[in-house]
């Protein structure tokens, strides 16, 4: 029988310290107080002093409360039963259904041997032209969605969750507004996607420590599914809240902050999560899409900055659209040559014209006279924004490419596009 300790010698922030023997680093304990029982994790050992991070927070814990060590680290079930279920950051059911305790695995496992990784090669279709055509999502990619507060990033994630061609979706919510959580749940339910989804949700009113656990819980489950030949898409929102929770704990533990209060290991902490994205040779894969809100639309803020150095590109959400210039999928070259022969050409040409359109807009706003070419560009820009960039557009890649040709034909003549003649021959819409 595990020994129970009754003497808490320090309570600071969400961290309590007890004197105990034979406790292992990272192990869990149960803290029983007047408010009920909470899990806690060992985050520092110093002689007999054991510091624990209490998942539900330290409020209401008294120095005489009971601490019982469980002798094991944090675990999560990897059972198939998880599908369709919703849990808290600590792995407790949020949907009033029974707890699942079979096939328990440890979270935060070791990283994949780089020698066993393979070059990504499979596209993930999402039905969103700004992704499929212009910045293709690739299996095993890790991509953040850089966004300002107020942008419809959660709607975007929910749409991707419904439409993406993958086997399993794992959604991790960190600091979600309760409304957003309900929106996620209801949208997925309405579209019948809930049955292939597992959700780990930490809402803004939940204890901050649970927020820290969400990515690890999601990725541990994702890893075990991927090893069982599943193509898993992990959606995380919002990683800035995760980083802020890291900051909070670090400050409580009196660590020296490095940049704007964030701990010095922010990069390593983020990388340890993002680098779980992988394509297992001979098994499934994990792809990660994570919302990162940028405080003040500042991409040099420590969280988006460190993220950018880790991820393979970014989607930049601005004014309700995925901005074609700031966004980048570093892996798109691996797949967009193999979809349809006109994919790259349509992509390049559309972006080139859109950049020209932006210039023309500037000229127009400065009161310059518009040439007939400018008029064509203006027409093009409007069509492009309406039919391609709008987030509500939902068409397959092939339809999107055809649509691109249609927009070209509506605005320009064949030679003006500067596209190679064999492609024009094949794809230019025939007048009916």
């Amino acid at each position: 029988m595990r020994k129970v300790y009754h003497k808490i010698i320090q309570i600071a922030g969400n961290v309590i310290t007890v004197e105990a023997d034979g406790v292992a680093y990272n192990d869990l304990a149960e803290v029983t107080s007047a408010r009920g029982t909470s899990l806690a994790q060992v985050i520092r050992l110093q002689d007999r002093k054991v510091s624990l991070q209490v998942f539900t927070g330290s409020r209401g814990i008294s120095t005489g409360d009971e601490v019982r060590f469980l002798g094991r680290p944090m675990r999560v079930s990897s059972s198939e039963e998880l599908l369709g279920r919703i849990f808290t950051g600590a792995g407790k059911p949020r949907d009033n259904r029974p707890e699942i305790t079979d096939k328990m695995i440890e979270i935060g496992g070791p990283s994949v041997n780089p020698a066993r990784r393979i070059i990504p090669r499979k596209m993930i279709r999402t039905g969103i032209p700004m992704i499929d055509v212009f910045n293709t999502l690739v299996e095993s990619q890790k991509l953040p969605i850089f966004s300002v507060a107020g942008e419809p990033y959660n709607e975007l994630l929910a749409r991707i969750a419904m439409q993406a061609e993958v086997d399993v979706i794992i959604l991790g919510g960190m600091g979600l507004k309760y409304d957003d959580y309900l929106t996620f749940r209801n949208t997925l339910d309405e579209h019948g996607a809930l049955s292939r989804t597992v959700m780990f949700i930490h809402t803004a009113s939940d204890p901050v420590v649970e927020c820290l656990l969400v990515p690890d819980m999601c990725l541990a489950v994702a890893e075990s599914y991927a090893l069982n030949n599943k193509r898993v898409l992990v959606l995380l929102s919002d990683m800035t809240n995760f980083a802020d929770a890291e900051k909070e704990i670090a400050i409580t533990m009196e660590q020296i902050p490095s940049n704007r209060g964030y701990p010095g290991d922010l990069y390593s902490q983020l990388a340890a999560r993002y680098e779980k994205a992988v394509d297992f040779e001979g098994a499934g894969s994990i792809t990660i899409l994570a919302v990162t809100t940028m405080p003040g639309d500042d991409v040099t803020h420590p969280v988006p900055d460190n993220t950018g150095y880790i991820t393979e590109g970014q989607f930049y959400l601005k004014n309700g659209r995925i901005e074609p210039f700031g966004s980048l999928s570093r892996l798109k070259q691996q797949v967009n040559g193999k979809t349809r022969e006109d994919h790259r050409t349509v992509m390049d040409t559309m972006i080139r014209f859109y950049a020209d359109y932006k210039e023309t807009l500037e000229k127009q706003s400065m009161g310059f006279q518009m040439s007939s070419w400018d008029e064509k560009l203006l027409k093009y820009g409007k069509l492009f924004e309406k039919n391609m960039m709008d987030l509500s557009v939902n068409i397959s890649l092939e339809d999107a490419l055809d649509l691109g040709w249609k927009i070209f034909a509506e605005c320009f003549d064949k030679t003006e596009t500067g596209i190679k003649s064999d492609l024009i021959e094949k794809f230019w819409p025939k007048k009916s």
Partner: protein
Amino acid sequence: MLDSNNGYVVGVNGNMLTVEFTSSVTQNEVAYAKIGDLKLKAEVIRVRGNRADLQVFESTAGLKVGDEVEFTKSLLSVTLGPGLLKQVYDGLQNPLNKLSEKSGFFLQRGVYLDALDFDSEWLFTPMAAPGDHVSAGDPLGYVPEGIVEKHYIMVPFAFRGNWEVTYVAPAGTYKMKECMARLRNERGEEREVTMVQEWPVKVPVTCYKEKLMATKPLITQQRIIDTFFPVAQGGTFCTPGPFGAGKTVLQHSISRYADVDIVIIAACGERAGEVVEILREYPELVDPKTGRTLMDRSIIICNTSSMPVAAREASVYTAVTLAEYYRQMGLNVLLLADSTSRWAQALREMSGRLEEIPGEEAFPAYLESLIASFYERAGLVLLNDGKTKGSITIGGSVSPAGGNFEEPVTQATLKVVGAFLGLSRERSSARRFPAIHPLESWSHYKSVVNADEIKYAREILRRGQEVNQMMKVVGEEGTTLDDFVIYLKSEFLDFVYLQQNTFDEVDAASSAERQKYCFNKVVNVLKTRFKFENKEQARRFFQELRLTFTDLNYLPFKTEEFIKQEEKINAKIQEKAVHA
């Protein structure tokens, strides 16, 4: 009762252990913390009283106060010997391919394998004879190792003083740990030499006569580097830049085309995906110089961002020690570290755990001296025989937070390197690659082309930028035609010479000869006076001229098409040139 070499854990904080010991410990000594049968490698980094702080190279989960720690008495070392080439190691020199055979997809902690295959056999040819007097680093014989025809079996670097050879194995095939020679020193101490030796990674190998001035350019076949911001064999350079500016692509290009014997790539704390490209592509790509694959001349040290942080710190030292080993054979070695910022961050994490007083941005105060001593391990050296030279060139990429070069790691690096190739977001978002900023970068080394012409070209770039900025205020119509032509010339230089397409087979690599030839042509255009009636005409002319030059860049040097294209260019220039 504790063994004298043992201690026990009294504190765990992240990857830092505090250990109480009874006898003596050495700074930077390796120790193993035991969890049951599992042994976790660690290094002593601070000693206070009878307690030592250790950084653990693995996850510390599960360690308890009271767990046993075993001190080894030896410093963190690498294994040196034939068979290092083509290997893929982690930061502690564990062969990753063998690890995956053993533990599958994941890197299980506590699994350490031999860096070299000690059962492999090598064809030995003796060079020394009994009675010879030798000292550390002197060759006793050699074995062929792939592209290295003579991989010298040397007097181990740790053998101090003078030694007399008493036995050398006859020519033949031997296993790595067989006795290849026996040496005796003045005190009569006799020791055996095998093909394998160990060397502590944080101590530079100094078994050479003297360090020389690095003067010979190291041709990277990247025009903007070799012509404008050259790197010398035995020199150092750094490539700082924000994310997405193409640091890694640039490093990969350099590693492919650089004119050196051996390339060591230290992927330190960066994306695993990028290493995978190297791992999967290099065995396929042919090195035009040797006709073998690029992998044949490479060693890859890879400690990517999600691998243990302390091993990340070790990985750059492991890489540079391997480089020093091959330099000792008279070879030219290029070490590319991507990225040194991650290494510095690893130092910062540890320093924080040690609760040291922080410097700027919480980096430790000794950051500068550590960066300096790392880059100082580069250099061109004259070996003990007085005639053979070997070199290490170090190129480190830096990932400054927010792309701001004012931060401590970039600044500390700039103090010690010989060339600064600063990548700019402005150029990368304009898709001008390589995005090395032509006005902010600098180099202390000698270029492959004439210095006066470079000065002239840079002057054009500088003035072109001034005109460009002025135009943003007063508009094109407020600019004189002469100024406008200077602007067009600077853009011309940028497009046809500074920019280079890494993904084109021909343009990706430009030989020194070709650079001299083409730069001359470009400078001629810059120096030529042209006569235009108006700006529109000037713009059109330069657009067309630019196109003829970029076409030239895609043609193999001195082929028939190349010469034909040149004629087109000459004709084009003559259209508007004014002859004095």
